[in-house]
């Protein structure tokens, strides 16, 4: 208690210091003020901590091993009818499960990575303008919250290299959370989910890539689908494509309506080489697409901002 009083006195005397600002030469006033403010904030923080501490001393301890407090009923968990699972997570599980049935292992993506995995290992030339297209965040250390799940490609290739070279193939999907530095509105989030796929073998072709992707979406939407592609550009695939499907009936699609689902392409030989895989012997394909959009389409959801809102009115729908 005494300590708190002392701190309060200190604050009082500090407040009177402000009056002295007139005596300080004009060019030094800014600095003087800043120093004073810093001191004041420090004392205020100490007072706050002390006050909180005092509040906490009034808190009574309890028997942490007991099932309930004396004379209270043993608590019950809430009713199953109140519970909900996040639709993005349910969808991600659904997507991953289909890929698993198709023979793909799963590796979850990191949420804080480095320049090497995000760009260098993916054949982005140093300081190439293509890096700008990803609007990445950066930490003070230069770390990057990844802007695409492709940040895991190099790791996937390295982890499965032995399997590939023992007459196997690499077949892995990578679900994960990714980040882009962009303003949020009904259709844009700075935080969203993607699922990456990587396939490498001695004999695979672009036809195989189109086949795998069509197969996935046909299983996902439980119907036959027409597909379409569009040339794209990613430094880590050559050739690069955008993949589209004809809008499924369950989503109210009409003939000729196409939905852009993901970007894909044949893995660039430099990407294989960097992971120690001989691109003259093996080739592969990779793809990556958003999960948020799948959920929005499935439920007819109009605003992507609901996902990270934490609002129970929204969550309890699921």
């Amino acid at each position: 208690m005494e300590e708190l009083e002392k701190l309060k006195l200190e604050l009082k005397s500090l407040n009177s210091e402000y009056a002295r600002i007139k005596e300080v030469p004009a060019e030094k006033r800014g600095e003087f003020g800043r120093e004073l403010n810093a001191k004041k904030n420090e004392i205020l923080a100490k007072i706050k901590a002390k006050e909180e501490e005092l509040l906490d001393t009034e808190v009574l301890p309890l028997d942490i091993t007991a099932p309930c407090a004396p004379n209270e009923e043993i608590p019950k968990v809430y009713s199953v009818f109140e519970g909900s699972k996040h639709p993005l997570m349910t969808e991600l599980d659904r997507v991953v499960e289909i890929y698993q049935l198709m023979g793909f292992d799963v590796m979850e993506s990191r949420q804080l990575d480095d320049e090497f995995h995000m760009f260098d290992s993916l054949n982005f030339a140093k300081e190439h303008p293509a890096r700008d297209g990803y609007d990445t965040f950066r930490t003070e250390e230069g770390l990057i919250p990844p802007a695409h799940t492709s940040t895991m490609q190099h790791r996937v290739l390295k982890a499965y290299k032995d399997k590939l070279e023992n007459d196997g193939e690499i077949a892995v999907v990578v679900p994960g959370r990714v980040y882009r530095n962009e303003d949020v509105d009904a259709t844009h989030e700075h935080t969203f989910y993607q699922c990456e796929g990587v396939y490498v073998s001695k004999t695979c072709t672009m036809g195989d890539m189109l086949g795998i992707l069509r197969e996935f979406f046909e299983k996902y939407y439980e119907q036959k689908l027409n597909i379409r592609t569009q040339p794209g550009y990613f430094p880590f695939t050559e050739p690069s494509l955008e993949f589209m499907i004809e809008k499924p009936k369950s989503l109210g699609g009409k003939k000729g309506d196409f939905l852009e689902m993901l970007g894909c392409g044949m893995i660039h030989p430099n990407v294989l080489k960097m992971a120690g895989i001989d691109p003259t012997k093996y080739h592969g394909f990779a793809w990556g697409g958003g999960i948020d959009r799948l959920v929005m389409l499935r439920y007819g959801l109009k605003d992507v901002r609901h996902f990270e809102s934490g609002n129970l009115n929204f969550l309890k729908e699921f």
Partner: protein
Amino acid sequence: MKISLNWLKKYVEIPVSDEELIRLIGARLVEVEGVIDETHKYDGIKVVRVESAEKIEGTHLTLCMVNDGSAELTQVLCGAPNVREGMLAAWIAPGATVPASVKEDAPFVIGTRKMLGKYDSHGMLAAADELDFGDEHDGIAEIDSNMAKPGDALADVFGLNDLILEIENKSLTHRPDTFGLIGFAREVAGILGQKFNEPAAECSLKPDNAIDIKIEGDNICERYSAVVFEKHGEIKKKYLTLTDTLLAKSGMRPIDPIVDATNYLMLLTGQPLHAFDYDKFVAVGGSKNPKIIVRLAHAGEKMELLDGKEITMNESDIVITSNDVPVALAGAMGGASTMIDENTKNVILESATFSLYNLRKTQMAHGIFSEAITRFTKGQPPYQTLNVAEACASLLKDGFKISSVSDAYDYKAKANVVEITTDEINRLLGTDYSEKKVVNTLTNVGFEVETGKELKVTAPAWRTDIHIKEDIIEEVGRLNGYDNITPTLPRHNSATKNKMLTLKREIRDTMKEFGANEVLTYSFVSERLLENAGVKTSNSYKIVNSISPELQLVRQSIVPSLLDKAHMNQKIPFDEFALFEMNKVYRKDLGFNDEEVPTEKMSMGFVLAERKNQGTAYYKAKMYVEKFLKRFNLEAEFKPLKTDVAEALPFEKKRAAEIYVGENYLGVVGEFRTGVKHNFKLADYLAGFEIDLDVLLSLETPKKVNNSFEIKDKQDLTIATKKTYAETLKEVREKYPEAEITPVGIYQPEGAEEKNITFHLEFR
């Protein structure tokens, strides 16, 4: 980028419908983001001849009789100063819409109206800005009588019934050649299976290097050509030109003849040009003859740009200098000191290429996003600088003639050659294209192919992006249509399940069953949020370019974010709920892993909050831990919180416990400190837990059943004690090792020191 289909059709013959063409461009070249339909924008606008023009006394108006090709003349009042007898003008007939207003909410439809109380004015004579061809409004647009006659539809004269494609630039990042209409047209020919007719590219300019050009620094400027134009006549811009309409359709504005010529050629060829006033250039440099030095800027060097802004340059900016005095920010914008104006006599036309890496930094640092820099940052190839300069001279020949040609081009780019077999192409694509088809596909768009054991493919000068076999494979696959590749399925083995994902899925199902709600919250939190939760902010990785202070720190645990969401939901109001989230967390004190990236943890946070409950929240949170762990066949022990653990988390030391399974520390469950509750403005009944899912995963235990399913005996047992529940339970267990023991209740009479703990025992 905007592409006019009519302009495109001047360079390539299109045998398919516009709809099919747009589909093919989308499927084989680039994403078409949108199509602007201008096929009716100029309906009802005709070329007319002003047959008579009489000034109306005391007004600025002129009474005109115009000839629209029909038998009768039409009366129109016109306020423009340049209206005169005999001129051809664009007449917006009554009922037609002013083109510049078509995109507005209420397009302006022209009618017939009475003016000055007595004159009927039918329609109007239009200025260039009203026709949507720029900002010119000083007079009505005049049309060259060599191009049109009265009665012609304006749209037919200038090819205005057009579709404008809006192209997504991003997917052409590696294709600088397609940022010129000719390059785009070449690709269109290719995807239609035609050989592209290259426009004549002969260049008759022979450098005399009258201007001294010095490039200081490696790789900043591959080629710098400077052509001097000397004035010998006036370019009086009188008529509305085709160039005006093309610039407008491409999203640019006509400005003056020289600038228009450079912009037009940039749109056509992809090569940006810049015009300096020769005499100003020499004066600024203080040398007798112009001396161009291209170099990197000195840090802090200043220059005033064309737009009047003074910029401070960085060491990565490339500057064009006149004898070392900066006169242009290379690739981005010219300087004010050498700007051309109506008195310009001689011009230095710059046609150059610059390092896209430097220009990218310039673009970012100075926020300049012009059509020119967009092209330079794709890496324009150096082969055509002089050709384009010569084309510019030819456009301006009425006013200027070339007086000298200088060209600094030390490093002559070598042609890119790739050797590949048809089989290699088919093996990657999964196709069976013949060698002939491959060769035709490539030669249509300017590649040279020598056949033999292998195909020796030489890329044209504009394809600086061709280096490896895959680049050739892309061309063949793309130009023939990826959609013509048959989807097949490769072999696959059975997959291995991902244990963490499976665990999370089970937790998700379990927690839903227990009435909890899964949320997702951002990985980034504010300093304030962590302070409110009593978490050390210095242990968080900090985002330097965060969107807002709300999203500045990488979170170290899940619970603080949940407290924030609990507050929001309590306000809605929800009286009682339990939120949980499973996600990755990072803390600086966890250090880096073998890959030299931060060690990460998969964490699960849980917070329950009630507004009306007077009871002890701790026990409900503990109940969740126990019930939830039981699903994984684990039994937890609850131990007092160590001080260091307590300090790193928002939990109240006296009302929280560390969760252990055997020797393994799993996390913390408990109530929160009073200050934390206050900071988050949450009602008193509040508790939660945070557990490490990586540890939980390592504890996986299969379920074992006791094979005697029949209950032989049961009894309730009440013990009066001062000991803790756990200690008491231990004693009961020791006494009845066979029994299955569950708690029934704890009763403590008011004022009593002892409490009565009642257990239910079942014997099987």
